[in-house]
């Protein structure tokens, strides 16, 4: 097992810069998820760590060895592809044993490792089948098995669940999490789905347009997003953003006016002046229907979605902003009616004109 460290890594294809100044440290045994919208460079970053792409600048180290010049085969990594990439002309057994061909392993050892991996992934009965005879979920497990057999220092996953249907996705997600617990291996996982990121990761790396926006544990990113992008990316449904203005600034206390309401927050000293425009963020699930201390947001209901376990109320505020409120359980609210959502100050996020959070309390 090994640490992975990236320092100053950049990647360009001709004139187009895909990644810039990536600095990252993955500790041995961590489950790190690269997450971000399409085109943010997460897959490219993974392929760079694998050695399938070269870097335009910077250094990559795996297990304290510089690997920039090493081909994938020498980096002690294994990769699971979105399309599974199973060899169609080989049986499941041969697919899983393929990698060991190049590491000079004797037949008995190969057999042992393949069967062991098959056991873990419940593939023991399928070893003689060809990939086209398997279901999507089974193929995915063979792909994972192929990686396990090689006993790598780092496992790389490239959106492995994207091609599975919803139910299978949940099951396989649990299996991957269990695999991580059992093997204790370093795993780097790429996905565009923030639910996968939140549930699997011990550390999430949020990428946007080739830059790292924020790195942290899932709940850390949830509670203390450092900028607008991360705040809007993590959490579903998306955080509500409302334009506001600084009314008063006094040392570390600030009063923010937004959508006809006012709230007091604690801000980083010197980050705001009265009159500065800000963006206020509140998660739908943090809005309350009642609350003495909370700032009230009044508006009309445009739509209501009832899911049974919760309801989503779509409001248009008097100020013109659109807001989603998540209410627990069922609700009597109906479209056309009026509604007031209360916003407790402790749940407020405030971002300055550059989209950077002004709240002091992130670790």
């Amino acid at each position, binding site marked *: 097992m090994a640490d992975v460290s990236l320092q100053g890594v950049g990647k360009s294809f001709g004139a187009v810069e895909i990644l810039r100044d990536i600095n990252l440290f993955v500790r041995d045994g961590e489950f790190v998820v690269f997450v971000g919208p399409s085109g943010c460079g997460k897959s490219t970053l993974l392929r760079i760590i*694998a*050695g*399938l792409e070269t870097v335009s600048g910077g250094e990559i180290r795996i297990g304290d060895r510089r690997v920039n010049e090493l*081909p*994938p*085969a020498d980096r002690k*990594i*294994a*990769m699971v*592809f*979105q*399309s599974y*990439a*199973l*060899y*169609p*002309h080989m049986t499941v057994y041969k697919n899983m044993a*393929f*990698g060991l*061909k*190049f*590491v000079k392993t004797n037949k008995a050892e190969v057999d042992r490792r393949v069967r062991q991996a098959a056991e873990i992934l419940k593939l023991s009965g399928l070893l003689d089948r060809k990939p*086209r005879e398997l279901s999507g979920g089974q193929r995915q497990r063979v792909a994972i098995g*192929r990686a396990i057999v*090689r006993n790598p220092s780092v496992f790389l996953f490239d959106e492995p669940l994207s091609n599975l249907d919803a139910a299978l996705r949940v099951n396989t997600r649990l299996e991957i999490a269990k695999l991580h617990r059992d093997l204790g291996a370093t795993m780097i996982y790429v996905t565009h789905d923030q639910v996968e990121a939140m549930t699997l990761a011990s550390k999430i790396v949020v990428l946007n347009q080739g830059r790292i926006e924020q790195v942290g544990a899932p709940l850390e990113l949830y509670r203390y997003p450092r900028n607008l992008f991360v705040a809007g990316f993590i959490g579903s449904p998306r955080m509500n953003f409302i334009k506001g203005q600084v009314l008063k600034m006094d040392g570390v206390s600030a009063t923010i006016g937004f959508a006809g309401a006012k709230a007091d927050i604690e801000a980083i000293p010197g980050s705001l002046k009265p009159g500065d425009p800000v963006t206020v963020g509140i998660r739908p699930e943090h809005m309350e229907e009642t609350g003495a201390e909370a700032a009230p947001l009044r508006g009309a209901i445009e739509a209501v979605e009832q899911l049974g376990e919760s309801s989503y109320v779509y409001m248009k505020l008097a100020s013109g902003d659109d807001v989603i409120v998540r209410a627990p359980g069922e609700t009597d609210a109906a479209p056309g009616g009026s509604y007031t959502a209360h916003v407790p100050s402790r749940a407020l996020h405030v971002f300055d004109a550059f989209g950077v959070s002004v709240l002091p309390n992130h670790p």
Partner: protein
Amino acid sequence: MTDLTASSAQSMAVAPSRSRFPVHIAVFLAPALAIYTLFSIYPLVDTIRLSLYAGDETGARSFVGLQNFQTLLTDPNWSGHFWNAFRNNLIFFSIHMVVQNGIGLGLAMLLSLPRLAGGSIYRTLIFLPTMLSVVVIGFIWQLILNPLWGIAPSLLKAVGLGSLFGPWLGQESTALLTVSLISVWQFVGIPMMLIYAALLNIPDDLLDAATVDGAGPFSVFWFVRLPLILPTLGVVSILTFVANFNAFDLIYAVKGALAGPNFSTDILGTFFYRTFFGFQLQVGSPTMGAAVATAMLVIILIGVLIYLFGVQRRLQRHTF
């Protein structure tokens, strides 16, 4: 009630009518089937029929069953040339299989390397000889290999292989090989293109997975790409077979109908031509010509059948 019948009558009018004879289908098919049958199938069948007859000087024909074939295969006046042509054709085919398809495979592999600069230019240029007439190619090489002109020997001398040169086209021992290589040189483009297309079809993910698994470039080719293009290699092989056993143009252009020296470049196509039309001292015989053609047909059919049932069954075409 009336509504139902009205709507069902309407839906019947929409679909192409089945109850009346579908005239339009016949109209669409007729011209193709007519020309094809008249000028492709009928002549073949008629040739086979003709091979069962023998003619004499008066032009009268009589049914002789398989006697023509017996003559062809065993009569010393005929069988020598027939078996010679057949053997030469086999050599011709073998050289194509090994050299033409080997080089084609190699070129296809090089051209399918990722991010190859100028790939399409190479492909276009290397494919050029295939576009030209066999006759033209034959003459070009005749000129180049001509000792009088001296291009070939001087080029070889420049590389230090000057001693190798000889009047290859004129020597019995080397003529067939030379002509075969000329043909290979011209037609390499075809297996190159077909195999190239098949290689492109292999998803990049698969090659990446093999690389990550530890395979070097050669191993990726041997264990992943080659097995996956086997069906295409099968198609290339049978196409080569049919083309080679049907070949005529090049030999005729370079060596004439006599396919010298001393029939060393004679293949079934030239043998057929001579038998049918006659040449110099030999009188043409339509019936014997038909027999030769039928024999060629049988040989080609055997090859095709072996391919369809022996080879194609085994080779799985993988969809991605």
